[in-house]
């Protein structure tokens, strides 16, 4: 894993591999593709004094191994705030029989026994009896942990927002494809949108019938802009003795400790999250990307109305407009700063179509029902909120924050996932991680 990563099923057919259409079954050895990573693996391992190889229980058990009684060993990484609820979702929402075998939190220095309580999540991923991890840390850790967990043979239920940057999200998608594990974000809005008008809307959008017809979705309010704006100019202090502050900062810059950077208000700091957009955006927009057929693409243009941004904390913004190549537009209004756009949602339905289009619509089969995480784990299908879909949704928040932070309109290539003619914006799309962490 990060700092010493090896693909778990090197040279062996991965058991429990999810059937995904874009998996390259031969492309499993990450370090062979990336010579520098192999070097780093050795150098970093020597530097930090550890090296290990993880083999999933499915491989040890052989091709016919299934967990007894379909009970899964599970672990929670990040036990504050959302953590307990995230873990409960495994059983209460997803119907999985799970045994909580371990928990991890960076505030357990001096209290960890490295049997059931850990401060280093990598020790949990080494365990053969863990099948599923629930990740409820702040977002700056989500990509690294999700990738490491999937490469260690675990399925992942991860809190939203999926990632802190666009490049991280693409790395998670690639890891899901490479490893064949099940990945799902803890947001489920799309699952309630599979009937009636929403399904019709989705099919119309996917068929391209809404092109240039000024279809728009507007979300007004509920973005907690000032609630999740971190306090500024706070005098640093020593971190609590039970907190591993270096590990908390992890891939983000190691900044002097102030209480608001830890525990809830972390949402207000760019180092860890994306303000209120990061907190709520994935919930609001996950059903929208599904209904409007945008799971496989991103906007090509985004602009925002916002004052100059602060270097450290998420601050005020008024609205953001995100426009896709087919003309579909998402408008977010904070209701907390500036003037509203005056725009409203405008969908498209059967009544808006020509006779020819109606016939084509009638002939389109409904998409397969979205697979719940629990079912995906049991049957090894791709979860309904899989990595690509979750990534395309969270990209909306990242693009919005890109426009807010740079203060200018961003043109974006949805295939390359890069801003066009804006090197500075791309330095936010893809941000360096602090050693030894990487994706």
């Amino acid at each position, binding site marked *: 894993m990060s700092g010493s990563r090896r693909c778990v099923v090197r040279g062996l057919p991965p058991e429990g591999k999810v059937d995904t259409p874009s998996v390259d079954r031969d492309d499993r050895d990450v370090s062979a593709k*990336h*010579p*520098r*990573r192999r*070097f*780093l693996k050795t*150098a*970093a391992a020597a*530097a930090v004094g550890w090296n290990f190889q993880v083999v999933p229980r499915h491989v040890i058990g052989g091709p016919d191994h299934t967990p007894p009684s379909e009970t899964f060993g599970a672990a929670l990484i990040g036990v504050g705030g959302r953590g307990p609820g995230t873990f409960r979702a495994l059983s209460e929402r997803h119907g999985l029989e799970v045994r909580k075998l371990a928990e991890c939190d960076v505030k357990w220095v001096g209290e960890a026994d490295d049997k059931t309580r850990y401060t280093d999540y990598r020790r949990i991923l080494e365990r053969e009896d863990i099948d599923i991890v629930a990740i409820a840390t702040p977002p700056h850790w989500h990509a690294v942990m999700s990738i490491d967990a999937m490469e260690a043979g675990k399925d992942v239920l991860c809190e939203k927002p999926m990632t802190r940057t666009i490049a991280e999200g693409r790395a998670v998608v690639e890891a899901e494809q490479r490893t064949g594990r099940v990945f799902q974000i803890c947001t489920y809005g799309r699952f309630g949108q599979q009937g009636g008008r929403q399904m019709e809307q989705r099919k119309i959008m996917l068929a391209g019938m809404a092109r240039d017809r000024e279809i728009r979705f507007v979300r007004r309010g509920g973005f907690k802009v*000032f609630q999740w*704006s971190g*306090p*500024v*100019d*706070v*005098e*640093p202090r020593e971190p609590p003795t039970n907190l591993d502050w270096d590990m908390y900062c992890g891939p983000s*810059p*190691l*900044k*002097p400790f*102030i209480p608001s950077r830890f525990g809830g208000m972390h949402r207000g700091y760019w180092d860890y999250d994306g303000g209120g957009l990061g907190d709520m955006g994935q919930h609001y927009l996950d059903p929208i990307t599904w209904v409007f057929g945008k799971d496989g693409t991103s906007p090509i243009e985004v602009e925002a109305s916002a*004052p*100059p*941004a*602060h*270097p*450290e*904390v998420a*601050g*005020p913004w008024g609205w953001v407009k995100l426009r896709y190549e087919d003309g579909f537009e998402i408008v977010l209004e904070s209701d907390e700063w500036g003037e509203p756009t005056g725009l409203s949602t405008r969908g498209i339905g059967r009544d808006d179509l020509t006779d020819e289009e109606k016939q084509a619509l009638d002939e389109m089969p409904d998409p397969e029902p979205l697979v719940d995480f629990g079912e995906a784990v049991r049957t090894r299908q791709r979860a309904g909120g899989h990595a690509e879909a979750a990534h395309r949704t969270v990209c909306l928040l990242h693009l919005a924050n890109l426009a807010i*932070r*740079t*203060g*200018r309109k961003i043109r974006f290539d949805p295939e390359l996932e890069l801003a066009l*003619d*804006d*090197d*500075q*914006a791309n*330095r936010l799309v893809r*941000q*360096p*991680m*602090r*050693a*030894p962490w*990487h994706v």
Partner: protein
Amino acid sequence: MSQASDFTDRVPDLVDGRSFHSLAPDEAADLLGDLWQAGEAGVEALVDALDAQEGSGDWKARFLLHALANQAGDAVAVGADQRAALTRQLTAMALEDHRPPGVRTFLLHRLQWLAGDDEAPALAPLVADPAPDVRDAAAAVLTAVGEAAIEPLRGQLEGAGPASRLAIEHALLQID
């Protein structure tokens, strides 16, 4: 001669002593325009006003330096010459070892947005800086610069201690 207060006095105070509300866009445009007009003297005044550590009351100077660096990335708003001049100045100041590590780290974090191929050779030695924050920030800048930083980084491997080697190799890994 510019004083930091010529500019920081025009930034509204924090609401309730902690909450950042920025300033109105038209006021910001005027303020940043005046900062660009002041040139090196304005930037130097702001950098000189930075405390060794964030949280000591210098947030307005930090905010303005960031706003300047951010606007420098807008090819419509700021000319290439102005951007280059700002980048050179911030680079030179980040290399001044009489400045506290906290200040140099802050400048390097701005350069993560701005530094280009030309700055990589000058900044590469900072991956061996005694201050870990400076090392990490320098590595981040060079990672952001990308391919042009590869040779300068490799050039720092010889004689590098373990911490520097880790920073260098990690930067190279991420550039790959």
